[in-house]
């Protein structure tokens, strides 16, 4: 499994198989999830991409907001 990278023309690669979704055509994050026709998944992907850009790779305590 590898992580999504904006510069690698991949949104995501799954744990077992590559899942090429759509290219980061214009370097714009919107372009990455524009083809995902699902409002909940679209927002989740947007949040995951945002989080990946600016947070440390650690897990937080569950009993907290």
């Amino acid at each position, binding site marked *: 499994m590898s992580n999504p990278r904006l510069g690698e023309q991949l949104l995501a690669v799954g*744990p077992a198989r590559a899942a090429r979704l759509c290219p980061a055509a214009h370097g714009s994050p919107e372009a990455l999830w524009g083809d995902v026709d699902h409002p909940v998944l679209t927002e989740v992907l947007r949040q995951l991409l945002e989080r990946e850009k600016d947070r440390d790779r650690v897990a*937080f305590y569950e009993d907290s907001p």
Partner: protein
Amino acid sequence: MTHGPRGGAAAAADVHASAPWPHRLLDVPALRRAGTAPVPFHQFVLKLHSRCNLLCGYCYVYTAADTSWRRRPARVSETVLTRSAERIGEHVAAHGLDRIRVELHGGEPLLGGADTALRQAAAVRAAVRAATGPGCEIQVSVQTNGTLLTADVVRRLAAGGIRIGVSLDGGRPEHNKRRVDHAGRPSWDAATRGLAVLARHPEAYAGLLCTIDLGLDPVEVYDSLLEFRPAALDLLLPHANWASPPPGKGPSSAGSTPYGEWLAHAFDRWFDGGRYRTRIRLFTEIIGLLLGFPGGAEAVGLSPVAAVLVETDGVIEQVDSLKAAYQEAPATGMDVFRHSFDDVLEHPGIAARQLGEAALCDECRACPLVRVCGGGHYAHRYRRGSGFRNPSVYCADLDLLIRHIARRLERVLGVDPLLSG
């Protein structure tokens, strides 16, 4: 007060006799010599009050195996409050951290009033600034049962930059029948009054935590919680393990999946809602992990856990959820007066939770879901006599839920199976 735990590190080691993994079997110095570095703490759970005005039937602090709360001072003292803040500043400076989270906790943290929370937050901010300058962002939140949230308390916490999370098990009185005070009276009216006040301060409303009750309909629970307009929500598995199985499951029914099915129903309601209504942490994490993003929650995934807790007497512990395992299970034998947080990073219980796949049992490591499940919540892996190197007591439930979410994603994205096996 005493400055330190009774008996010190040696006594703390004995309390972990029923958990040889990791407490006797994980050689942390050897791990360090081999090049595995600790991950600095990013989250500091600070107990402001060790008692609670509620006595919820499933509470892992007051109704589980550990009874250490009885000997703690009810309120955090100024000495502990200040020393904890200094230790955090020291840790931030030592590791050059640019963002940390501080969780003000209990018991019920607001039993000491908003003043204590504000003083603790201010002390941490001042200590970090003194140690490192202004470069570290400090996110402070308080996790409360909501019953003490008056307009004045919410206004002051919001003004002090403290976000507020509330525990609520559903949006109807009957969903919260386990959430009662010490006389058995329901907390619903007081909690929802508090939530109504909090809803007027969306900038301070961090979200809701809901512990799953199998007796309730997951769709009804989810729909009713939405009426409180939480920006974020988490659905928590009751803390349990192989020695103390969760309601509705037991060693003889380990393969049953009532929690997985409950969560799958809730997932479908959320995922098929037609529009995004709220973030559900567990579902967001599983989606992310299935698609290759790093995890950010201790419930699933293999990311190193970077949380540590300070009790009202200054004792440093692993997190409270371990209290469901055995007496003193969270103990490290260290305290803020004699030990730095760097010292605590060398404790086997802390180090084990930063090892990812290497901390898991053979069965988990061979599982095709391991990078998503991550062995589940560490506290749920405990088995008396072996410790924390077992599959989760919720293994079958997690398997069902993860496969369900994977299938839903595959259909929406039109991709090949995200999981093998």
